[in-house]
């Protein structure tokens, strides 16, 4: 009975989206709220039930599958609307629907004054539906449907305030940059059809080791194509540029889509395709290095940003880098574990930041905050929990998952990558607490109107904060003891056992490594404490001393400008050239020529058109007589 109901998990939000979207203008706002929040509640309830059923099965048999209807049937290829509920999907589904529900509730308060309230909730529900399709699909095509769906929703929600040019262009940017990765995924899917004749996870992942030899070129290219898509969706180097701009969207959107769920879709895709990546050591190496470099790179930009949401956005990119780092060294369960804990604390950080912005009537600049702990106690407290979790301070959630990744990196022999990760950890501690101190501690630098406006958030925004704070504090214990915790045992059967993973834990002591990264994080925090609470004048002095470096970081390594010069401008110039010469001269000229020819011919031929019906009849008859005569004389 239960497997047949899996499709309902994404269906409820879809229904909610359609109802809210179509009826939103006609029904009361309370009804919109009720429908929009009921949908994720039902999904969460249903996914909890399914997970419960999963736990009652023996570990090897933990798969619920159900094909709803056939979708594509073309020749030998057949793709169904098929859903798969295994431990990996379970984790993803629970995170998506759980965090999703909290953020829906949060949005009630946050979007209360919004004119297009129903549009927002309709899109949010639609996003949830697409995301759930993505994680519940049992084949690559359906996954890709969800993949594109969340991309669309992301675009629509970033550009939610489309009257603002910045929001509109940020949405477009996200859409276009994602397109690059998506194109790679499409190529990968077509190749899969050619190679395996199917897109079903089970078939593809079972056939891949048989068809492709270990380390073969095809396996490497195929997995790299998939990773290109993942890098686009999950904002990794070099396709990360859209995510900071995506902060133009409403803050709940940033929390849900651009921190907790959608951006982790790439991680999910790689984890889901783990058997394929296992065939390609080179690809895994690429994944690990891209992840590691992104982690450090984004963390370094986050050090100097002044927009509260942007700091968190770069932090997200950095943490996603950790996840890929974990996946790249074969620690899939650790990567997913970090995905889950990150969903909690990053959603929490965004929501808390949103609460600040809400309280200050839209103020986002850290330089005009400070001392907010007094008026915003709950926000400050929950933000502190999130910051500690993000910085990887024991015993908060981030510590356990990040430590496990770093441990796996070291154990797999990538010592240089470990150094990158550890440096990132220090940087993370610094920028998180720089943020915390600048916003909540110290002296108030508020503008007068923000000072007048300041108030703690309504209950609908406070409760999600508190619940997420609890999650951020405690979620890590699912992974204790490291390597063999509840979480790892639950996820274990999904992933292929790798030689590195099994052999490594034996001869490296985890405790020493954990201590090392913990100390680095604490050092970062201490530095932040020193610079931003004790000696607030120091950072500026430092910036003045190294203007080049500071400028580079503040301008985000000038990558946007670089892309603009390298890609955008040549494209626009080329298009302009084509439109000017080729289109307007050649094509338009041809078309105009044909048109004027017709006009000329029409002017001459119109004299035949007498408007006299009997004459027409006579000519028709003449035609009939001639044609019939021809047929009779020559064809019979």
């Amino acid at each position, binding site marked *: 009975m239960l497997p047949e109901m899996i499709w309902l998990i994404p269906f409820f939000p879809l229904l909610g989206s359609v109802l809210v979207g179509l009826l939103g203008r006609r029904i009361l706002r309370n009804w919109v709220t009720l429908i929009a929040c009921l949908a994720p509640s039902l999904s969460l309830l249903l996914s909890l039930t399914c997970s419960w059923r999963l736990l009652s099965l023996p570990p090897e048999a933990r798969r619920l599958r159900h094909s709803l209807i056939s979708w594509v049937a073309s020749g030998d290829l057949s793709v169904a609307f098929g859903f798969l509920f295994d431990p990996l999907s379970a984790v993803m589904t629970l995170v998506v629907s759980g965090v999703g529900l909290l953020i829906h509730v949060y949005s009630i308060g946050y979007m209360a004054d919004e004119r297009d309230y129903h549009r927002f909730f309709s899109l949010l529900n639609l996003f949830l539906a697409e995301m759930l399709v993505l994680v519940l699909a049992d084949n690559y095509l359906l996954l890709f449907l969800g993949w594109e769906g969340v991309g669309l929703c992301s675009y629509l929600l970033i550009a939610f305030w489309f009257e603002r040019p910045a929001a509109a262009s940020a949405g477009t940017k996200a859409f276009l940059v994602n397109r690059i990765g998506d194109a790679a995924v499409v190529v990968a899917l077509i190749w899969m059809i050619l190679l395996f004749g199917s897109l079903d996870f089970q078939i593809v992942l079972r056939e891949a080791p048989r068809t492709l030899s270990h380390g073969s070129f095809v396996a490497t290219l195929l997995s790299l194509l998939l990773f290109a898509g993942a890098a686009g969706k999950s904002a990794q180097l070099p396709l990360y540029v859209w995510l900071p701009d995506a902060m133009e969207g409403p803050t709940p959107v940033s929390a849900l889509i651009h921190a907790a769920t959608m951006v982790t879709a790439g991680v999910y895709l790689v984890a889901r395709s783990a058997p394929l990546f296992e065939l390609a050591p080179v690809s895994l190496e690429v994944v690990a290095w891209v992840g590691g470099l992104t982690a450090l790179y984004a963390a370094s930009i986050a050090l100097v940003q002044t927009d509260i949401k942007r700091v968190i956005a770069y932090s997200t990119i950095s943490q996603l880098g950790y996840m890929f780092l974990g996946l790249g060294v074969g620690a899939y369960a650790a990567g997913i574990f970090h995905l889950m804990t990150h969903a909690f604390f990053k959603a929490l950080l965004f929501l808390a930041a949103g609460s600040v912005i809400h309280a200050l009537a839209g103020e986002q600049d850290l330089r005009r905050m400070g001392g907010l702990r007094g008026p915003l106690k709950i926000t400050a407290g929950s933000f502190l929990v999130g910051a500690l979790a993000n910085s990887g301070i024991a015993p908060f959630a981030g510590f356990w998952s990040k430590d496990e990744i770093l441990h796996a990196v070291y154990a797999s022999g990538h010592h240089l990558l470990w150094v990158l990760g550890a440096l990132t950890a220090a940087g993370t501690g610094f920028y998180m607490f720089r943020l915390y101190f600048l916003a909540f501690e110290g002296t108030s630098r508020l503008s007068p109107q923000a000072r007048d406006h300041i108030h703690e958030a309504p209950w609908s925004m406070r409760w999600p904060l508190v619940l997420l704070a609890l999650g951020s504090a405690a979620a890590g214990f699912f992974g204790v003891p490291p390597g063999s915790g509840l979480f790892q045992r639950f996820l274990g059967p999904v992933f292929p056992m790798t030689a590195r993973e099994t052999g490594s834990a034996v001869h490296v002591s985890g405790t020493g490594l954990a201590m090392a990264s913990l100390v680095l994080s604490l050092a970062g925090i201490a530095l932040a404490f020193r610079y931003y609470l004790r000696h607030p004048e120091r950072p500026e002095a430092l910036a003045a001393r190294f203007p080049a470096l500071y400028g580079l970081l503040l301008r985000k390594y000038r990558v946007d400008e670089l892309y603009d010069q390298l890609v955008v401008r040549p494209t626009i110039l080329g298009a302009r050239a084509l439109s000017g010469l080729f289109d307007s001269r050649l094509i338009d000229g041809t078309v105009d020529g044909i048109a004027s020819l017709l006009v000329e011919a029409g002017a001459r031929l119109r*004299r035949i*058109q*007498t*408007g*006299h019906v*009997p004459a027409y*009849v006579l000519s028709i*008859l003449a035609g009939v007589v001639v044609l019939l005569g021809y047929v009779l004389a020559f064809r019979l």
Partner: protein
Amino acid sequence: MTATVPLQAYLILSAALFTIGVIGVLIRRNALIIFMAIELMLNAVNLSFVAFSRFLDSMDGQVIVFFVMAVAAAEVALGLAIIIALYRNKESVNVDEINLLRG
């Protein structure tokens, strides 16, 4: 019961009726009568259809005649409406006087 009247008899009758209809369309100038002559032509064709249907042991001809009748009904409804509209404007249904569509 074998048909003692051969198919050719029906076809010749059909051809004759059709030709009469064509003559009507050509020599009459009252739009209504032209219209009637067109109906006559349609009926002539129907007769061939039914005759073929009978002699080829197939039902398709009769089905098509049914469609022809349905479409003819639609055509008459529209045609008469047009003629009425025309009469309102021109006070005449003489096709020689109607040439609004002259190029």
